[in-house]
């Protein structure tokens, strides 16, 4: 770029920039500036905290559902291929054992002798 062009631009605009600087001095902030700033910081902080909590909750929910699906996928076929060892109910087993021991049952009193 041309050095003379730069100087020309600078010469014409510099006084205007200086006047603008003077016309816009640094202003004192209002009394509400700091309280409002801290209010915004606190609001942002609680928003960030709640979004983190929501994220964690979502992560845990996804992990739980995934674990349930994986456990189901592993355990259900295993149960289907190996039928349970006991097919009869507890009452059936007890009745069967009872009938097998019938010979050892003592006759009612009076029938002996």
């Amino acid at each position, binding site marked *: 770029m041309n050095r003379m062009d730069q100087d020309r631009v600078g010469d014409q605009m510099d006084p205007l*920039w200086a006047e603008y600087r003077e*016309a816009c001095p640094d*202003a004192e*902030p209002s009394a509400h500036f700091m309280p409002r*700033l801290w209010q915004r*910081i606190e609001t942002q902080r609680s928003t960030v905290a709640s979004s983190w909590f929501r994220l964690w909750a979502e992560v845990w929910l996804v992990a739980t559902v995934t674990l349930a699906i994986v456990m189901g996928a592993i355990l259900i076929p295993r149960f289907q291929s190996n039928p349970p060892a006991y097919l009869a109910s507890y009452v059936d087993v007890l009745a069967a054992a009872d009938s097998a021991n019938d010979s050892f049952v003592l006759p009612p009193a009076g029938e002996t002798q």
Partner: protein
Amino acid sequence: MLIEFELIEKARSGDDGAFNLVVKAYRKRILGTIARLIGRPEDVEDVGQEVFLRLYYSLDQLRAAEVFEPWLYRLTVNAAYDYLRRQKRRHESRMSDLSEQQVMMADASAGGKQQAEELRRTKVREMVQSLLGKVSEEDRILLIMKEVEGLSLKELEQIYKVNENALKVRLFRARQRVLKAFEAGEV
């Protein structure tokens, strides 16, 4: 630097009291810069709070206390740029607002040296804002940071993270565009 590095370090480590002192030390300067960048006094504090809010949540990313000021200026430039883009989207006519303000001020003032001085300042503000309206938001901010805030090319390099030559070219083009509008009397 307006404050000790130690205070920045304390604020960085989460000391809210230290952060409060940092804000108090810089708020006047930053609000002044924002006022000159956006040209709307009623929104200056809001943008200023946005700058310090961003500072609060980004202090832990600051590499060293020595680069605090360029960092703060970078946040200021970004917040002003975001504001100007939002304003552009809203299609608000900045100049018509300023003119109304000026007319109201002129009506209210019954004469006197102080009022005349204030009117002259308002005219200067209006004229520069109008000229800056001829360039993009990026160039407007760059021009003000260089010409009005008086930042050096070295400081601008730190803020914009681009090399000096690229900045020079961009500044030259922006200056030319503004000068062209100035000479053409488009204000």
